[in-house]
């Protein structure tokens, strides 16, 4: 049987980054992604989604461990310093593991 465990990587960050991040994910060979609109608060203050400039997005990527690490490293290097952003990773069981 195939190994059905994969990583679920979640990024919460500024909505302004959506286009850039989607392009990045593609280049880092993620096979897919899911985005929901979000608001929140953290070290960069309250982001209440009242308008574009204060809106967050929540991006999820299901992928294998290497891809998750590659994405985490890339994002940490390019965006952590200048953007409101958090990233976390957990284990998930998937159906059709070849998809991810």
């Amino acid at each position: 049987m195939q190994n059905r465990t994969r990583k679920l990587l979640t990024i919460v960050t500024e909505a302004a980054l959506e286009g850039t991040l989607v392009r990045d994910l593609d280049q880092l060979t993620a096979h897919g992604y899911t985005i929901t609109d979000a608001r929140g608060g953290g070290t960069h203050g309250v982001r209440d989604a009242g308008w574009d400039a204060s809106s967050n997005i929540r991006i999820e990527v299901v992928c294998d461990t290497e891809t998750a690490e590659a994405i985490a490293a890339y994002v940490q290097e390019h965006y952590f310093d200048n953007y409101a952003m958090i990233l976390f990773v957990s284990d998930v069981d998937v159906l059709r593991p070849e998809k991810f």
Partner: protein
Amino acid sequence: MIDPVILFFLLGAIAGLLRSELRLPAAIYEFVSIVLLLAIGLKGGIELAKQPFGSLLPQMLAVVALGFFLALVAFPVLRYLGRFKRADAASIAAHYGSVSVGTYAVAVAYLGSRQIAFEEHMPLLLVMLEVPAILVGIVLARGLSRETRWGSIAHEVFLGKSIVLLLGGLLIGWASGPEGLSSIEPLFFDLFKGILAIFLLEMGLLTATQVGTLRRYGPFLVAFGIGMPLFSALVGTGLGWALGLSIGGTVILATLAASASYIAVPAAMRISVPEANPTLSLAAALGITFPFNVLVGIPIYHALAVWAHAFAKG
């Protein structure tokens, strides 16, 4: 008497400061902005059809130069007087060199309720003034390095929402002329001030959220947020007079110069100069300069234009 749309702005600001639960859905704010941008473009486009393009070229070029100039003046003030980081100074300078469509709309409403005519092709100048300062800001922050991806920056800047809608409206208005547009007038022209009222209500709420930042970053930002538009309005008045604009047109150009962007420029800066702190520029542009212009600036620029024209005559 004070225009009711300004009262809507105050209502929003007060509700926000009192932490009321009033909130406009983001989708509505977006919709209202889209209608305003299209309406402004359409209005300008109708007039464009009436004049030879050649006669507008000098004004367009002058306004592009104005955008470069204002950003270049603001930068050293912010960098050396304000002691901001290079990226922050560049980004704030870009905001103040560019324009705010909301402020423009309030100036139009101001002149309208006083029945003061102005050159109707002003939306064209509005578009012209939007871009140059963004380019200045990016170059000031990053230098003219080879690595800067100008292609994608140009894409970002010229295909942003506000330019597409303003230019699109201008072209549609130009192609259709006044009779062609009469069927869509009820939405874009008759409702204009009502929609502007809703827009300003939300602007008031947004302005109120900037107070925290202002408290933290102190008096220089406040001083700059008032001093810079006054200076820019002077320059704008001078240019309007030099270009032979009417009093109304001069008021508009001064207001455009005095206004600071909070839509197009923040979006562009966030991607192209990410190391600039967006809180600073928004607090200044939205928390200080927008209310200043809307509440007291525009009447001042009006007085200025009247004075300049009187002075010029004799």
